[in-house]
């Protein structure tokens, strides 16, 4: 399980670093806009949080009041955001490193950066074309439907990019382009109305900020993954040549 260990370690390092940097970027670029938008929340139509609870709520640990537990504004909220960003970074890095390893391997910052940019296209830009980043208080279609579309779009975009970059047959290239385009021809689930109390100007700034910070995050995630992965190969020699003796 050396490969497993090395991938997980590289993912943890790059996820922690990129998630922390992302949090710093967000606290200037996106979070002030979220907090601003929250002042409009509920002022338009009654939007609120659409609770779609699972049927088996076995552990109602924090269930006091309508809204449930929420981190207090200020430091606590920042800490939870940072933790979430770092966890998301680790998760995305695991997927990035897995894809890179399945197609070859990352051998430095440059190949890492390329996979990072591909990750931005698949997980930020493509889903964001159909479902633009939302501010609190904005109307949206059914949550489960949007999540399904988001996931399918990310997966198909990754597949399409992979086919375009790693295959040579023209038919596979066509298939790659089709899987890039298909989610957008199908169309993202949209709300019945786009009416919202959130100013358009605020939303426009938010969308631009999300894509800018996400691009930097993915570039960082890929670069660090590439650098760490290139150095972290302990024990894997046994995999490649079946020999017990490590080759160095």
């Amino acid at each position, binding site marked *: 399980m050396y490969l497993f260990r090395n991938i997980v370690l590289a993912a943890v390092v790059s996820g922690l670093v990129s998630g922390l940097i992302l949090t710093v970027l967000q606290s200037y670029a996106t979070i002030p806009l*979220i907090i601003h938008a929250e002042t409009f929340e509920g002022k338009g139509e009654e939007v609120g949080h659409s609770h779609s609870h699972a049927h088996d709520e076995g552990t109602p640990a*924090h269930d006091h009041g309508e809204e449930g*537990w929420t981190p207090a504004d200020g430091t606590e909220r920042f800490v939870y955001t940072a933790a979430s*960003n770092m966890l998301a970074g680790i998760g*995305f890095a695991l997927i990035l490193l*897995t894809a890179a390893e*399945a197609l070859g391997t990352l051998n430095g910052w440059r190949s890492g950066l390329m996979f990072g940019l591909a990750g931005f296209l698949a997980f930020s830009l493509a889903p964001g074309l159909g479902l*633009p980043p939302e501010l*609190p208080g904005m109307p949206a279609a059914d949550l489960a439907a949007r999540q399904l579309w988001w996931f399918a779009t990310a997966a198909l975009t990754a597949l399409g990019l992979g086919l375009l970059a790693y295959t040579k047959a023209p038919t596979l290239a066509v298939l790659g382009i089709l899987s890039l385009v298909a989610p957008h021809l199908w169309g993202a689930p949209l709300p019945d109305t786009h009416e919202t109390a959130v100013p358009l100007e605020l939303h426009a700034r938010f969308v631009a900020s*999300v894509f800018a910070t996400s691009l930097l995050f993915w570039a960082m995630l890929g670069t660090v993954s590439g650098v760490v992965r290139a150095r972290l190969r302990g024990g894997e020699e046994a995999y490649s040549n079946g020999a017990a003796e490590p080759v160095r």
Partner: protein
Amino acid sequence: MTTKTAAIALGASASKIVPLSITAMLGMFVIGFVGFSHMEVVHNAAHDSRHSLAFPCH
């Protein structure tokens, strides 16, 4: 581990299948937890992160 020895016998790329399947599933599980979980507590804790990473939210 039996899977590992069997995988080594099959060659380099086959030996990657098991660990890569696990890392892929682990990654999707983590993303699912942070970005997709419908649990109220998780949603509130990850709120700003979800909005800023353009996950479907609310």
